[in-house]
């Protein structure tokens, strides 16, 4: 290769590096400003939950999206990291000099240690066998945690007081806003580290074993060893999320590592989109918001996030970030206007089907509680009797009519999309 050709191939590095850092600067600014924009203590605690969920979902996507590893027991690393951090917090309560901001490091150590142990078993295999083993390991760990009440506090878990340790530079983290800034700083740093990791040799090897684990062997790498390293690092970051959760909640229980917690992180990561680094951030923010906002309104919110998950798996396997990524070139090429009418034509069917689904779900939940002797709560402000036939028929008709309208409008929308994306490519 000639020298001039080499210089031609060398691309400008510093400009690109600056542009790559821009989202991180913006994220830091947003984290600084948000608590002053979002109303009240409720908003603040919601923001704290989001920060923790972001770290957790990103650590999960190190496995699923980047490494092709489906971990059914990821909450175990958060949980055990949380327990270890809680023990450290209790030591601080007892007078040991353990600065509170360092607790997530303790969580990281806990998550890492358990991930190395669990990964030593599970990462020898890939694919379905790997997923099955993670499920088994998670069951096992939860059982052990409940069997050792002296260490993990049994059903009640462990609780502590984050503000009773020695204050640091006059800050004792007693108030929620102080805790928020601590969590935000940690979440930002952890996310940045996970992003930097994607640009390292191991990060690229993770992508390689996701795409084609066999070929990696013929390029000199042991796929099982790559899986173990990636799994361990992912556990470390999940442990940081656990440390943050311990800090935020001041309590850690076996519920933090339950199968529900593990499936919640799968759901939020998938809905956000596993194909991009930032997809899980969207999922974590959205699902955390929905779980908090919806759970105050309806008992059926888990059903809704489940439905959203299934809908995504079927119709948009790339998640929200996948949809954004697919549409970005079309919008940039100025063809958004062509898509809008076809997409808008789907809205009536969508809202009808949504209303029907909500109606059926809410009626179903009411039916259960009425059968248990409770008086029926109104459905969306309407006093409907879930034991009557009419509300069910109306909801079912709404759903069917909506589905029918959607089916009719879908081909045109698909066609418009294909046309626009082809034209955007040609440009």
């Amino acid at each position, binding site marked *: 290769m000639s020298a001039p050709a080499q210089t031609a191939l060398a691309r400008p590095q510093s400009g690109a590096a600056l542009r790559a850092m821009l989202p991180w600067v913006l994220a830091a600014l947003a984290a600084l400003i948000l608590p002053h924009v979002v109303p009240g203590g409720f908003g603040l605690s919601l923001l704290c939950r989001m920060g923790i969920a972001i770290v957790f979902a990103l650590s999960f996507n190190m496995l699923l999206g980047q490494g092709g590893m489906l971990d059914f027991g990821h909450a175990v690393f958060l949980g055990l990291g949380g327990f270890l951090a809680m023990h450290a917090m209790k030591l601080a309560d007892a007078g040991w000099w353990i600065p509170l901001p360092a607790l997530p490091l303790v969580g990281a150590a806990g998550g890492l240690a358990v991930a190395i142990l669990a990964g030593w078993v599970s990462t020898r295999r890939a694919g379905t066998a790997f997923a099955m083993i993670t499920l088994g390991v998670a069951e096992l760990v939860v059982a052990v945690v409940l069997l050792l009440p002296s260490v993990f506090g049994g059903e009640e878990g462990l609780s502590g007081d984050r503000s009773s340790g020695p204050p640091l530079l006059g800050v004792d983290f007693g108030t929620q806003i102080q805790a928020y800034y601590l969590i935000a700083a940690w979440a930002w740093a952890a996310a940045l580290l996970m992003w930097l*990791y994607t640009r390292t040799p*191991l990060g690229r090897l993770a992508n390689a074993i996701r795409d*084609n684990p066999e070929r990696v062997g013929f390029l000199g790498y042991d796929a099982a060893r790559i899986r173990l390293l990636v799994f361990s690092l992912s556990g470390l970051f999940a442990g940081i999320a656990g440390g943050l959760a311990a800090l935020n909640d001041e309590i850690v229980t076996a519920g933090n590592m339950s199968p529900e917690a593990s499936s919640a992180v799968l759901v939020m990561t998938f809905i956000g989109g596993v194909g991009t680094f930032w997809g899980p951030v969207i999922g974590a923010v959205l699902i955390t918001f929905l779980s908090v906002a919806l759970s105050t309104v309806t008992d059926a919110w888990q059903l809704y996030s489940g439905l959203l998950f299934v809908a995504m798996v079927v119709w948009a396997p790339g998640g929200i970030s996948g949809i954004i990524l697919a549409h970005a070139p079309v919008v940039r090429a100025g063809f958004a206007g062509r898509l809008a009418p076809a997409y808008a034509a789907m809205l009536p069917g969508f809202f009808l089907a949504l209303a029907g689904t909500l109606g059926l779900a809410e009626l179903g939940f009411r039916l259960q509680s009425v059968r248990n002797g409770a008086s029926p709560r109104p459905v969306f402000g309407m006093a409907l009797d879930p034991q009557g036939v009419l509300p069910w028929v109306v909801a079912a008709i709404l759903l069917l009519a909506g589905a029918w309208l959607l089916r009719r409008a879908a081909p045109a929308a698909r066609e418009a999309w294909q046309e626009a994306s082809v034209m955007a490519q040609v440009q």
Partner: protein
Amino acid sequence: MTLALHVTGLKKAFGPTKIIRGVELQVARGERHAVIGPNGAGKSTLFHLISGRLPSDAGQILLHGQDITGLAPHDIFNRGLARSFQVTSLFPRLSVFENLRAAAMRTHGCGHAFWRRLEGFAPLRRRAEEVLSLLGLERRRDVLAGALAYADQRALEIGVTIAGGAETILLDEPTAGMSRAETERAVTLIRRVSEGRTLVMIEHDLGVVFGLADTISVLAEGRVIASGPPDQVRGDPAVRTAYLGAAAETLA
């Protein structure tokens, strides 16, 4: 002189079917060696055994005099042997450039590092760029490997195999399914990338074989029935009856 590859008494059966029935193969260092034989003769299986993809039932494989029998694929690669696949085996969701870079990582000091930037490995990037231009795929640099045209994927398959700079290269039907023009380009590429290395290549296109190979081995019914310079193999009566037939007449 030590042989690049020395296979003795190699055997492999799938259940009751004996596919490799005592293969003897000697590949001299620096030669271009073609393995030919009818479909289903066991050529790909032989490559799987040599490269560690499949365990053998009996026999020994020496790479530059070192016993590599029974080693895992990555250990064999790290002793200097790389292989390509008859069925293209790339990283479909990585770009062409990232495929080449991943392929060269092991031999460019990357290890499993997660504390250093990939961009920081300048020789690695140069190597990937170099192979990219060798393949003539510069304009496809950032295209996902899964989205490449078939012939480009086959070229990348060769590129991924050689990017690490292995001393001994095994190519399994690199020109299969290619048009005349694409085959010619592939042959030029193979000639260039095997310069100063040892090449073992499975190939069914006899025109390619006789144009490229220093030595030809014929595999039939699980054994190497002839091995030698092209002229000698062409004239071998056993080869004619077993395999070459009419094709040899036209070449003679």
